[in-house]
């Protein structure tokens, strides 16, 4: 009887220790910081993106956009998205200055008016170009935007992965939490489950076709976002990645928006 109690105590203690070990905010943060530091130094990048939007019946429509990113030093990254098609939004450009601990600064260039308009960032949970990606999904991912919790180790597609919970700090986020699968060897994200504010599974994003650039920086060339609640799907196909192109801070100021082509 005494032996049984001791066994039960040891089992319980092990279970508690195991839980503490594996549901670790410290380890979650360490993983996020390591992933962030491995992508430091890319300077700037450009890419061509084809966005394929599919409804639940499989009907699809395409958009063509270009992305330019400028790596921030103390502040977050700056990014510029230029719309090439469909025709009615051709020439529209979206500039975002990501902030690590504050709301992002965002401007929209409206080519018909030649107007640069500062916009509120309140709709970060809203769809980007009618797609299954929201504005916060396409924004630069800064370490300070989430709190973390390492959950477990798990194999995904034959890769040893960390599974980490990302909890958005901003109450305007459309998500209560995100569960992120990141491989242990290169700290590349392979899958994210997004849970809505009611903690129901909303979307799953998978990252495919990773390629390494400049012998250091990994970029996925196919992102697939599936909305489990609507049955809709959006794919982002990246092509023509370029790094350290010589763009400067000035190319990401609001005055540069109206010069964008």
């Amino acid at each position, binding site marked *: 009887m005494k032996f049984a109690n001791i066994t039960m105590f040891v089992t319980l203690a092990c279970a508690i220790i195991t839980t503490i070990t594996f549901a670790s905010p410290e380890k979650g943060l360490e993983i996020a910081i390591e992933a962030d530091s491995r992508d430091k130094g890319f300077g700037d990048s450009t890419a061509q993106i084809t966005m394929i939007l599919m409804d639940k019946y499989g009907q699809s429509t395409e958009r063509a956009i270009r992305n330019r990113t400028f790596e921030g030093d103390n502040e977050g990254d700056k990014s510029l998205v230029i719309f090439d098609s469909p025709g009615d939004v051709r020439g529209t450009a979206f500039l975002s200055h990501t902030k690590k601990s504050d709301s992002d600064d965002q401007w929209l260039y409206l080519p018909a008016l030649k107007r640069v308009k500062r916009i*509120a960032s309140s709709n970060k949970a809203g769809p980007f170009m009618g797609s299954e990606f929201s504005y916060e999904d396409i924004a630069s991912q800064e370490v300070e935007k989430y709190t973390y919790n390492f959950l477990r180790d798990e194999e995904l597609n034959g890769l040893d992965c960390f599974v980490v919970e990302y909890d958005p700090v901003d109450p305007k986020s459309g998500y209560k939490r995100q569960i992120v699968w990141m491989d242990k060897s290169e700290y590349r994200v392979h899958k994210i489950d997004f849970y809505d504010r009611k903690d129901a599974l909303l979307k799953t994003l998978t990252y495919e076709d990773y390629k390494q650039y400049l012998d250091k920086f990994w970029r996925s060339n196919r992102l697939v976002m599936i909305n489990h609640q609507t049955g809709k799907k959006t794919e982002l196909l990246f092509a023509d990645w370029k790094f350290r192109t010589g763009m400067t801070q000035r190319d990401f*100021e609001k*005055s540069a928006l109206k*010069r964008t*082509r």
Partner: protein
Amino acid sequence: MITYCARSFAIFILLVQPAFASKVNGTLSSRLDFYPDHSKGTASEGRSAEVKIDAFHDFDESRIVGELIFRWDEKDSGRRITEARQAYFRSPFAGFDVFFGNRQEFWGKAESKNVVDVINQSDAAANEGKSGKLGAPSISAERYLDIGDLQLWYISNFREKTFNDSDAHPSNGVLVSSAQYARKDGKDADDFAVRLSSFAGDWDLAGSIFYGTARDPILSLNSNGSALNPYYALQKSIGFEAQYTGNVTLIKWESLHGTQSSLIGTHDFTAAVTGFEYTYYGPFETTWDIGLIGEIQHDDRPQAAANQFGVAGIRLIFNDIADSNFLFLASVDRKKDQSFVSLEASRRVNDVTSVKLTSQFYNARTATSAFGQLSDDDAITLTLNMFF
């Protein structure tokens, strides 16, 4: 001259199109207008078409840009136009980006009216809202400084506001005669403008100075009431713009202060617009954006339709694949008991086609008020845009 320039530019762009860093795009717009309250002898409907060619070509650090408009209207000669809205050469010089040629520029923060937007003349006959502008023939320079963006403008020729025919809409119903000017050089008088704009944190700020011919003419009937005489005053003004960007609310201010010299002497004036835009995302568990707009306009110039307007509006963005959106704006002048209501709805039909439905309604208690004279100009407009 402008027609010649536009044609030459179009030919140039077509020739250079295969070169690297060049692009030519076009838009074909077909438009149908219906005028449900048209008075006898005026048009009950209108048909028009517009071709817009956008092009640019880069070489080294310089760029040539063109935006050419060819608009045909079945009946209204005032809407017909061949216009080089933009046709300029841009090159870096002494730390500035220098632009030579016709340019379109936008200054301002507000939604319902932009009193500080003084660079371009309005292509009012196009009735296309804020995008309906005539290119400003100019030499301008821009420089990005630590304190903000500096713009310097020299505008070499004055462009007169366009008017619809007297039997078209909107129109006061009488012919518009040749313009008169306060400045002795008339259309050849030079205009000058400077603007510095900047942002810090949640604030966007700008200040500007303008010396030149007022864009809006003072309209007066001739002695026998058969024609309107446009009179362009000399304007010396300073402009201020401010926008606070909160998480869900934008607060906006723009104002223009100065003097206007006309036949009746030199008078101080103030024109200002202030208000807010509140955006709420996801009402009724949807992915819509609802925007509420509230603004107050003040303008004590004789050209203004009223001294004060209160403006309220709703903007609905459905965030769907077709980019469907809807805008309702109502402007009310309680003093003269007149109002103007506009509705605008648009959506994409496919990747190369979009459709837009707009309607404008004028109400006025007295026929002599600004909107009273436009009481037969209520319009419902359907526009089909094709992009190539």
